[in-house]
């Protein structure tokens, strides 16, 4: 456990020593603000229209602002995640520091957990920057808090799952760029899988669609907590970290 903490701290520090962390924070905050602005503007416009048309229908901030922006953020995450994970192992392998970790009295699992947890926390810090926008909603209106919290939990779970996959891919290359692009390709693929369900209702399409990370995020964005989705994400996390440990072992056998 102490080793996990040592590696975790080293990784977190190293994120903030390079410009990458600040770049990602700025990029994410900008996009989150952009989406938030348009959703809110659209919401305001529609509520004016519905008032003037005389058919005033109840409009909900959660439904009109929070849900679509959370969906947007989950897609932005796909772009950010490869940049967080690509260096985790690729950099250590290239600079030879992996040899230090591998010959220290530390278990592979401790190295993997330390690194992955650092990536998760880094991602969470980035996510928090989008919360500023929602704070404005609470300042001027009365949205429901619980669905928003569920939404963030979903973002975090989805992120953790993809970060686990990214961690695995980072062990397969000495080149960060390759690790990053491969992770991005996989993230994108896992996202696009959900499109199949909208074209085809056949059994296989449903199954493939089920594998999509986005399919499982939708309920969270609505504020619905379903054990099926939580299990899906936990499974992907476990699978990703398991592959990482296998991959590290094979790196040693082949060296």
């Amino acid at each position, binding site marked *: 456990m102490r080793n996990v903490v040592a590696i975790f701290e080293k990784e977190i520090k190293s994120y903030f020593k390079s410009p990458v962390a600040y770049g990602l924070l700025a990029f994410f905050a900008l996009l989150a603000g952009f989406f938030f602005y348009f959703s809110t503007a659209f919401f305001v416009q529609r509520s004016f229209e519905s008032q003037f048309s005389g058919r005033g229908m109840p409009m909900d901030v959660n439904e009109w602002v929070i849900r679509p922006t959370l969906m947007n953020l989950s897609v932005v995450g796909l772009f950010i995640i490869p940049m967080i994970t690509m260096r985790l192992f690729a950099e250590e392998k290239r*600079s030879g520091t992996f040899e230090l970790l591998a010959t220290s009295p530390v278990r592979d699992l401790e190295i993997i957990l330390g690194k992955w947890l650092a990536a998760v926390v880094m991602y969470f810090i980035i996510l928090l920057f989008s919360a500023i926008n929602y704070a404005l909603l609470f300042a001027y209106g009365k949205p429901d808090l619980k669905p928003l919290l569920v939404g963030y939990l979903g973002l975090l779970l989805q992120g953790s799952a993809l970060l686990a996959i990214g961690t695995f891919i980072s062990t397969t290359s000495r080149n960060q760029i390759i690790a990053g692009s491969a992770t991005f390709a996989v993230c994108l693929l896992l996202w696009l899988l959900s499109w199949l369900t909208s074209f085809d209702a056949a059994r296989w399409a449903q199954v493939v669609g089920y594998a999509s990370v986005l399919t499982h995020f939708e309920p969270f964005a609505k504020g619905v907590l379903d054990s099926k989705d939580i299990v899906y994400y936990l499974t992907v996390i476990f699978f990703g970290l398991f592959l990482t440990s296998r991959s590290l072992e094979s790196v040693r056998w082949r060296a």
Partner: protein
Amino acid sequence: MIKVEGMTKRYARTVAVDDISFEVQKGQIVGFLGPNGAGKTTTMRVLTCFMPPTAGTASVAGFDVLKQPIEVKRRIGYLPETPPLYPDMEVTEYLTFVARIKGLAGAELTRRVNEATERCNIGDARRKHVHKLSKGYRQRVGLAQAVLHNPDVLILDEPTAGLDPKQILETRSLIRGLAGDHTIVLSTHILPEVEQTCEQVIIISHGKLVATDSVHNLTHRLRGGETVRVQVEAREGPLTHEAVQQRIEQVAGVSRVLFRETRNGTHLFDIESLQGQVVRADVARAIVEAGWNLNELRAVSVSLEQIFLELTAADAAAARSGGVQ
């Protein structure tokens, strides 16, 4: 302290290390010698549990590298060929991180980090970023990292590679200074380094063990007898070197006379004696009795360089002929 038995390491297509066995006693400094690509790094990587052997066993301080890797790693300090440094860390920060993953904590950790910093003379670089350090400093930080947890065994892969002559001397004396408490295995392809720092030599070539012995024994064993260099000059009149050679060859105990050169009428010979024979006196007498001047007579010691070339060349030749058959 280190025991390797029948160790083989095969990569996808090549055999890096082929069935080698050796032992290293506690407190020794052992030179691991071989041309580039001989399998030195591979052997070290197996000993440090970086990778498992394909066949055979290796153990450090009684712990098997396959069965109890964590115990082995606790007792080993390893400096790979390129020091494993994180460029964006400060030196003390780096050493502190390494100390933590080596299992140190609290006051003990601070004490050990300071101790290693002092020992390796990097005190004035404590607050510097690693990427700003010179090659020599990096090497020393790497060494500090290896000795941090006061391991029983130090494994150093070409510790002086790429350093300037002054740094090489400093690093060597540093290694000698560490010798007392640690068993040290250092790999190199620089022979004087072994002659100067090591007590024991293990020579490998093409993944095979060629020789393992003390530096002293090795120089003796390989050339059974001694080699004597003589300079002979005529007292008067001309003198051909053939005549001199003939005369010396008649001396009992001489196995071979090599003519080197003639300089200003002085002939230079290397005389090799048979195993266990001392021929200096007889050679001197023979020359003087023949009426010539004996200008110089001295014993020539064989350098490790020659031994090394001889051993590895013989090995390569054997491998070649083996391939033909």
